[in-house]
């Protein structure tokens, strides 16, 4: 069941915000839509919520077609970036609001509000107005308001981006635990790759209205399909080496040893990643590159441009015949100006399609 999105489009005049997105979100899944601003992730979420109507396509929630249903008939809850609390109501009344609108008896309302407030650690603020509590507490109130009526689907639109970094990290784990324990299908929108990686069961990376890749966080990290995904996920991002595929000549890459490191099985798929001109990328994560002595077998020879020790790891910026890339290693003896060999860890080079 869960949520089915079928070839959904959203156009604002000549601008296409969402370009035929299709995805199945499973029951109880924590699904994250990740992408830079303007990629269509929030618009997609708002269409699932019913706050925007699709220009075309179909949306089903738990098997029911809700494409043109009003939000209140979808059995969803939502948390907003700016919390969307009712400023004229107390915290208690805010949490109570969805129950009151649904005409649930007062005694039961009070019981549920107290239980939910307890769970989210805001029981002591119930009498305050939203203006009198901190940002983190406001977000808890908005979560409580969303969860108080046990919705089937929980939508979250960048709920943590107005919080400071430390609070964000704790709220991240808390939300994930809470939602998982309740088994609610969750769609979470963010531009923060750490949030996406740490919380998601599956991530959809979006770009210019398209879902470029939908997969588990590790799959996305290990096998980014396109240049955009490779560049967006991971810090520092994946090293991409322009390559060219030709049926007769095979693979030619800007740093040839890395192309040669592709296993035969992987190399066979090159044609499916290459564009019409045969262009694609060989991608290697910085931590999958090893610094060895110059001239080692299968290694590319490169000069060290810059060394950035970070304590736990060290970023080494190297230059191989004009192609600059990054190697992440443990502590290293390499110094600026050294000529070193760079080797790909076995089986770690990937094929990446151009955008």
């Amino acid at each position: 069941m869960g949520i089915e999105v079928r070839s959904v489009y959203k156009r604002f005049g000549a601008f296409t915000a969402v370009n035929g997105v299709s995805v199945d979100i499973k029951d109880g899944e924590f699904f994250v839509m990740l992408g830079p601003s303007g990629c269509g992730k929030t618009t997609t979420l708002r269409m699932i919520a019913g706050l925007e109507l699709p220009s075309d396509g179909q949306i089903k929630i738990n098997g029911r077609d809700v494409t043109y249903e009003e939000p209140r008939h979808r059995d969803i809850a939502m948390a907003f970036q700016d919390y969307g609390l009712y400023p004229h109501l107390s915290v208690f009344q805010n949490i109570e609001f969805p129950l009151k609108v649904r005409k649930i008896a007062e005694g039961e309302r009070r019981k549920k509000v107290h239980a939910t407030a307890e769970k989210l650690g805001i029981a002591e603020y119930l009498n305050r107005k939203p203006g009198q509590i901190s940002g983190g507490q406001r977000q808890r109130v908005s979560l409580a308001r969303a969860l108080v009526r046990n919705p089937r689907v929980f939508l979250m639109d960048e709920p943590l981006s107005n919080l400071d970094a430390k609070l964000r990290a704790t709220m991240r784990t808390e939300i994930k635990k809470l939602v998982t324990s309740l088994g609610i299908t969750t769609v979470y929108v963010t531009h923060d790759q750490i949030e996406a990686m740490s919380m998601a069961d599956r991530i959809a990376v979006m770009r210019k209205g398209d879902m470029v890749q939908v997969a588990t966080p590790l799959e996305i990290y290990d096998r980014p399909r396109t240049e955009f995904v490779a560049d967006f996920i991971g810090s520092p991002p994946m090293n991409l080496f322009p390559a060219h595929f030709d049926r007769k000549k095979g693979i030619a890459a800007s740093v040839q040893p890395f192309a040669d490191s592709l296993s035969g099985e992987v190399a066979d798929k090159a044609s499916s990643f290459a564009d019409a001109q045969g262009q694609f990328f060989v991608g290697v994560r910085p931590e999958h590159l090893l610094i060895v002595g110059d001239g080692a077998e299968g290694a590319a020879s490169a000069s060290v441009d810059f060394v950035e020790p970070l304590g736990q790891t060290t970023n080494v910026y190297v230059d191989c015949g004009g192609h600059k890339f990054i190697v992440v290693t443990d502590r290293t003896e390499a110094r600026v100006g050294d000529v070193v060999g760079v080797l790909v860890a076995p089986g770690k080079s990937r094929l990446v399609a151009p955008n």
Partner: protein
Amino acid sequence: MSSSITRRGSILSGIGYYALALMATAFFAFPIVWMTLSSLKSDADISAYPPRWVFAPTLESYRKLFTELNAMDALINSAFIVCLATLFAMIAGTLAAYGLARFDVKNKNFIAFEVLSIRMLPPMVSVIPLFIIAKQLGIFDTPWLLIAVYTLNGLPFVVWVMRVFIQEIPQSIEEAALIDGCSRFECFWRVTLPLLLPGLAATMVIIFMFAWNEFLLASILTSSEARTLPVIAASSIKAKAISWGLGSAAGVLMSLPIVVLVLLMQKYLVRGLTLGAVKG
């Protein structure tokens, strides 16, 4: 040492501010005080020179106002006309403003401008057409004509001001209500309206005052039955003499409802006149 100097300085500047505030208050309050005093003076006291500050107060002017000029009828007319016109303008205007602020209406800006254009027309230009229309509809010299005119007069102001107040309310608050189970109308009623109260109060006081004090249209579009207070007050000015006592009494009578209204709405007015009060 230096701290005592600055403390003395701040006391001095505090006194300065109070003095300035007192002067400003006196400047604005003087005409009102003078009018109120005049309304309680006898004709002889009013025309005395130098002005008399101590005199035997009399309600003679008020008596004349209610007996000779039928002020009671005019007061009832004014109250009925202005209250209904204000109510209609507030309801229609706020709903229109909500539509313009929140929905994807085609040619939205043109419609908003069109509404505003009613106010650009000099009232005098509309008098003759209004007179003819009223005659044909048989509503000349009835309250309904002025109710219609004042509603239309207040409408553009309500639409434009309330639109800004509504836009000030973050969309996400209304969206949260829609998701929490409200229909559009419930969302407006339970969430938007309570947040709009300061704006509504400020707007209402202003258009109430417009209509309450309106003279030109009232004097031309009524003859005897539907006469309002400003028309009555003006009749204290005769061709040969001005009846100061009567005029002052009418002035006091006209000002009272506004003063009461503003005092009642004071709490909202201050918040309403400083926009952005709704953000949590």
